[in-house]
């Protein structure tokens, strides 16, 4: 499998001298094309910090982050911006769609701003709308959409540029169970059909059960990993059991 991202001895601390808090301690992992990884862990485990570092929103204190063969800890802000634009997709817990434009324009935004021709943009938006079942809502504004529709819209916007990797921060955090299920199914389709590589942070075992691998983070370190072998239901049970044995959260 083609290696997309390699994380080596990643450390992140906040504060200085006696006030320094080490949030991530020598985290190492590899992400290959087509992976669908969920990162779980209790509050304060460093999940969001890890996501922010991997997605280039924050800089590590030490360690290497190699994305597509390039160490992104050593590039300047301009290059980082280009990397975010061309190689990374990001989904937020609170959707962050732009209120002033229709869902269609929201999805089209990253491509149209990158100089892709209108005709191509429209074709790709259509493809994303099919994938995320948003055809009936394209002309609506965010305030006319439900939370689930907004999050699927945000996911379509993140995937339209065909990023090397998609990062999702608690994507189902603000959704009800039906909307969560719809969104996760879309993620699965994107992962299986479109070969999208996904890394999502979640505290919810059910959401994590849709992933192919689950990493458990505690005290700034990856404590263990689970690989999906059986059905999603079995995987869900497996996650719950592991969480119980670790004394962690249950959904």
């Amino acid at each position, binding site marked *: 499998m083609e290696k997309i991202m390699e994380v080596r001895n990643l450390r992140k601390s906040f504060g200085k001298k006696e006030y320094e808090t080490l949030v991530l301690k020598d985290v190492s992992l590899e992400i290959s094309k087509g992976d669908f990884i969920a990162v779980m862990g209790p509050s304060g485990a460093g999940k969001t910090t890890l996501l922010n570092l991997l997605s280039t929103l924050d800089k590590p204190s030490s360690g290497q982050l190699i994305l597509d063969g390039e160490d992104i800890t050593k590039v300047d802000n301009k290059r980082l911006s280009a990397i975010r634009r061309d190689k990374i997709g990001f989904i937020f817990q609170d959707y962050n769609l732009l209120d002033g434009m229709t869902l269609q324009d929201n999805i089209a935004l990253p491509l149209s701003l990158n100089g892709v021709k209108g*005709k191509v943009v429209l074709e790709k938006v259509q493809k994303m709308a099919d994938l995320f079942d948003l055809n009936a809502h394209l002309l609506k504004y965010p305030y006319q959409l439900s939370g689930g529709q907004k999050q699927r819209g945000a996911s379509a916007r993140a995937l339209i540029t065909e990023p090397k990797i998609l990062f999702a921060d608690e994507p189902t955090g603000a959704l009800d169970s039906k909307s969560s299920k719809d969104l996760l199914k879309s993620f699965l389709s994107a992962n299986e059909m479109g070969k999208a590589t996904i890394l999502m942070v979640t505290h919810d075992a059910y959401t994590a059960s849709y992933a192919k691998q689950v990493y458990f983070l505690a005290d700034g370190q990856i404590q263990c990993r689970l690989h999906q072998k059986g059905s999603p239901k079995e995987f869900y049970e497996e996650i719950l059991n592991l969480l119980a044995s670790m004394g962690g959260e249950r959904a």
Partner: protein
Amino acid sequence: MSLWKMAASNFKRSMREYFALIVALAFAVFVFFNFQNMVYSESMKVLQNMRKDYIDTVIEAASIVFGIFVFFFIWYATNVFLNQRKKEIGIYTFLGLDNMKIGKLYAIEATCIALASVGLGIVTGIGFSKLFQMAVLKLSDISVNVEFSFSIPAILITAGLFFLFFGIMIGKGYVSIVRSSVRELLFSAREAEMKREHPFVKGGKIVLGVGILGSGYFCAMKTGGINSLQYALAAVILVIAGTYFLFSGVIPLLIRRLTKNKHFLYQKQRTLWVNQLSYRIKKNYRTYAMVTILMICSVTVLAMAIAMKSRYENVVHFRQTYTYQINSIDPLNEEEIAEGISQENEIVYDNKIPYLVLDEYGVVPYSAVKEAANRADLAFPYEELKEDEAIQLSHIIFLSLNLTQDESVRIGETQYQILNKDETAYLGTLQEQVDFYMINDTVYDNLKLNNTEWYLYNYKIKDATNAEASRPYLDTLVNEQDGMHRTGYSVALPENKEETWCKIFYALCIFMFATLILASASIIFMKLNNDAWADKEQYETLKKIGIAKTNLAKSIKWEICFAYYCPFVLMVITSWFSVKALGNVMKQNLIFVNIVSTAVIFALFTLICIESVHVFRKKVL
């Protein structure tokens, strides 16, 4: 923490946010105070012998116009402030504050802004009062020494008026907060932007906008005839109403159309800024309309000032055509008179014109006027007149529109067709006293047989300030018999102090123009600051999803350019009509004024637009 302490600390903390607002309001206070100071200041009493009562009236009129503008400006500024604070003070409700207390908090903070801006405006106003007066007098071309002085009544009137306006607006804001629900406080701004209009209302606004503005332009073009004033008034009202509807109907429609054309939209940074405009126009259209109307007013005020100045200069020029005019029933020796005048003054030109007085009219022969015009180097574009033709020799009346023109006149037994009404001073100030007509030479000779002929001898000297020197000689020419002047004379002195007030009017109009334009630009500047504050979060998201800063910077540039140049373009179109209408009424070609004022506004807007882009980018990127 008490409400007072909380408000004071909020105000201190938000000083940077409110800086632009306070400076704009202080500027309005500054100008208003200086207008008032000119009326009450000791130093301006030197204008007493220049009809200061007229000057005071002009300044008071300008103050009233400016006061009306200030009222709307404060209304707008306090609304901006309220919207900026609404969300934050809405959060206080979660801390257990009731609406009354939040209202009080808002009122205290707004009062701090009022005190800061009135204080700053008056202090700088006092500091610069001498400079302001010197600038007005310099622009008015009046040379008097100005002493530093300021008057307590001017301070009291300025502070009183501004506090009254602030009081009304703060009270309005307080009532609005007390009556609002938490939900309204938190989401009102956003909901106003998203609320959709019924297609019928939308369509109505579009039709009204185009129809009313079109009618306004039509009325402006119809000025110049006998109904000029009615048309001009109708044009003003229709253009103001039309501009409002244009920004609430047609322009949003055009922008929405652009957002629907995806092949246009998905190019460059348009997805972002065109959508942003479409989203914001609903909230901002009143601002755009207000700015456009302010600019149209400012250009029209400037055109009026220049037209008045030009008219004043024409009046002065008319009266200065001849320095001495000797009017006699007996023929005199013009060379002998010239010699007499030459003892004290150098003569530039002279001429002689005979005339008859029939009933209440005066008549002059064509050839004599042509010859006189030739000697005095005055334009004379007329061909030989037919027997029933006449040219009316009129004069410029400073404060009269004089729009009517008779087609014919009956003098004695004959009806003459009037070919033209000419305001060239062929007969000098005599044209101001009697209605003169230039007629055919043969007709004149026939009329001469039964009427007494008078003779007008005109002399223009080189140094008009030395005109009094020849008066003793001219006195020797005066011939009075049986209480009737057979020979008399008049002297045109260089300046008529009676009409100096119109120069002050001109200077004040220039200031008004500058103030209105600065106010327009500062309103847009404030609006954009407000938008930047609201958009901060959105730009954070865009950066996170990898939109390049250069793309965002370009999008901001386009969005801000629209905010400045859309009202500007509409102002250019509309002011062309308004200035044309004014030119028709004042019988002057003001196109040059239009071009220059437009260029000045363009330059100023471009400078402020660049600064706006810089500030906006600094805030959100």
